[in-house]
């Protein structure tokens, strides 16, 4: 059985839980008390990931750190539709990687602001917010014109990819770090669409977009 080293309030762990849920995969959760326990820095977890970062996924003999690496692996191995990470489409793979890198930037900015405001991490919240707004601006413009071209998603024309899942959590949690989405209407519409993907699940701070879900 797949095993996930997980923390409820982590957006990067949530990305992985999202894809696991959408693909309908069973998995075992191993909770690592990131806050306030700081157990990701304890020797026991450093033996699993020397970088001391969540999440980590174990599947058989494979142990993977880095949420985006895990998304790539899960989609390539378990997604029968071949849509979440279309390995045969070079251009699309390039685009997906480009947005996974932007998602990495969101972790360094929007997520950092959230850790500084909500969990007392010693980051420069103001600088983090400024960085987040720059990325939001790029994402909003991209999505606005994607809509004009008739596409609802960041990369592929007709369906979401792991790029959407990678960008979603720290966009959606941004207000906890004082980053407002008021000025980014195209982003807000896209987050509604992500929430309506079949198999979508929530985490603390992220509400469903429809009743009864």
């Amino acid at each position: 059985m797949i095993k996930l080293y997980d923390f409820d309030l982590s957006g990067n762990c949530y990305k992985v839980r999202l894809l696991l849920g959408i693909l309908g995969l069973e998995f075992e959760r191993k909770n690592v008390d990131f806050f306030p326990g700081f157990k990701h820095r304890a020797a026991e977890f450093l033996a699993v990931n020397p970088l001391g970062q969540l999440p980590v996924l174990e599947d058989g003999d494979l142990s993977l750190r880095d949420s985006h690496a895990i998304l790539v692996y899960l989609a390539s191995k378990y997604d029968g539709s071949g849509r979440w990470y279309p390995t045969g489409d070079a251009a699309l793979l390039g685009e997906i990687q480009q947005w996974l890198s932007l998602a990495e930037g969101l972790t360094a900015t929007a997520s950092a602001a959230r850790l500084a405001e909500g969990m007392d991490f010693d980051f420069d919240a103001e600088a983090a917010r400024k960085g987040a707004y720059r990325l939001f601006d790029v994402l909003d413009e991209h999505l606005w014109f994607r809509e004009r071209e008739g596409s609802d998603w960041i990369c592929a024309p007709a369906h979401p990819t792991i790029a959407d899942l990678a960008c979603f959590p720290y966009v959606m949690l941004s207000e906890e770090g004082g980053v407002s989405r008021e000025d980014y209407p195209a982003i807000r519409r896209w987050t509604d669409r992500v929430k309506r993907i079949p198999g979508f699940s929530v985490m603390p701070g992220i509400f469903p977009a429809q009743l009864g879900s």
Partner: protein
Amino acid sequence: MHDKTWVPVANSTDLAPHHVFQGRLMGQELAIWRADDGHVNVWENRCLHRGVRLSIGINTGSELVCQYHGWRYANRNAGCTYIPAHPADAPARTICSKTWPVIETGGLIWTHFEDRDPPLPELPEGGAALRPLPLAAAPEMVRESLAGLAPEGFGPLDETLQARGPAGSLHLMVQPADAGRAVIRGIVQSDEPELALLRRLNLFLRSARDQILAQAALTPAPEPIPHRPERVSEELAEMPEMVSGPARLRVQVAKKELVAKDIVALELEPLRGALPASQPGAHIDVALPNGLLRQYSLVNAPGETGRYVIGVKREPESTGGSAAIHDSLAEGDLLAISEPRNNFTLRRDVEETILVAGGIGVTPLLSMAAALKDDGLPFRLHYFAGSEEQIAFGERLAALGDRLVNYIGLDPEKTALALKGILKSPAPHAQVYVCGPAPMLDVTRATAAEAGWPDAAVHFEYFANTREIDTSSSFRIELARSAVTLEVPAGRSILSVLQEAGVAPPSSCCQGACGTCMARVIEGEPDHQDVYLSEAEKAAGDKILTCVSRAKSDRLILDL
């Protein structure tokens, strides 16, 4: 900050299906959403309950549901239709989200905060709306900075931010979001391919924005305009609706249609403005041309807020109400009606709902069924009709699919048997709603009690009280609040004595069926003759319907 004009606050494309757009105008946060009927709502972005942003709520297509405690507000009139924490009470009609006027033209959504509508914006026909560009700078300064800039192919923007050139014409607007925040919006008309042009103008606006922001950085940012939230007091929020007497609303009969044998449907439209919100189970009083006041349940589904729909059956023993509607009322006629009242509130916190309709009693249950279906809650509607041709509102019934069960032409004995089947096993989290003729309701009441349903789980709506009222007693009433003592002689009702003394509660049906004239009993034993209170309520003895019920004791002390 701006002259009296309509101001654009969103692009039409911002209002995606079932999305709630977060906007801002002069420091006021807005929740803007489009309902499934196409209507665009511009509301204050605060739930009246705890002030949570409605823009994080859920647009069901007909209602906006607050994410926090689930308060629901109706399309158009913004009236609160349901409070989950008080599932058995109808929300007070005064709980209504703040709304502003709206027009949609040129691919933009416009509103204003003036007392009366300013003239409509003069816009050329057609064109495409630009990608809006928000920026943290004073709106006035943004306007001044944009004037004179010359986007390629359009020539310089004049003082009204319009430009015309070989590429076409361009019209920019500056939405004053706050003292130090603005959104640049615009409409372009051109023969150039649209997407490439929108991209080009987006680049132009982005570089204009960067220039303006650099300039704005040199002056201190203005203080935001203070926000003035409107809230409803806890007290009001938790109090069931106060009833009001007279038929104060004026409506026009927009449509009169025979929907079954001897049943007409009336669609009533407001003469101006929006109709007050209604909830499933609500009814209105209709003042008829012949002077009678009659109650009719609303058939309206959630979000059906543009008109009230009622069904009226011609009663052979009619005292003139149904005959007046069938024979003398025509499309285009004006009617006086009351605001909707709800004595038949639908709970939406239960696991199963059983709806039982007899004949024209289907009307409030149709409204309930549509609401339950919308919410995805399990229910079944059992509809007893005399014959196929007496089945009314076929289209609405058809929409219920297999959740509708018809019983056609059953005699009283078979009806009783069918009811026994429907109510055979009381479930702990189920509720039953019954509306129909009095004999059927009496049988249902007895059957439910026999099967072990608790009183509180079975709800009745009588059309009329067909029991004979015994008015032979005489007694004294003391009004605790008014400090008045009155004698009620044989042959007169408590209500008429109260009316004479000028201290009467509102009243409506005057036959013990609608519950409007209810008063609280502080002391004394009521002699209940109504069909409105449940057996448990009657036994508790702390409420009385003053129009028909009397006293068994020598005196009653009422909380009036």
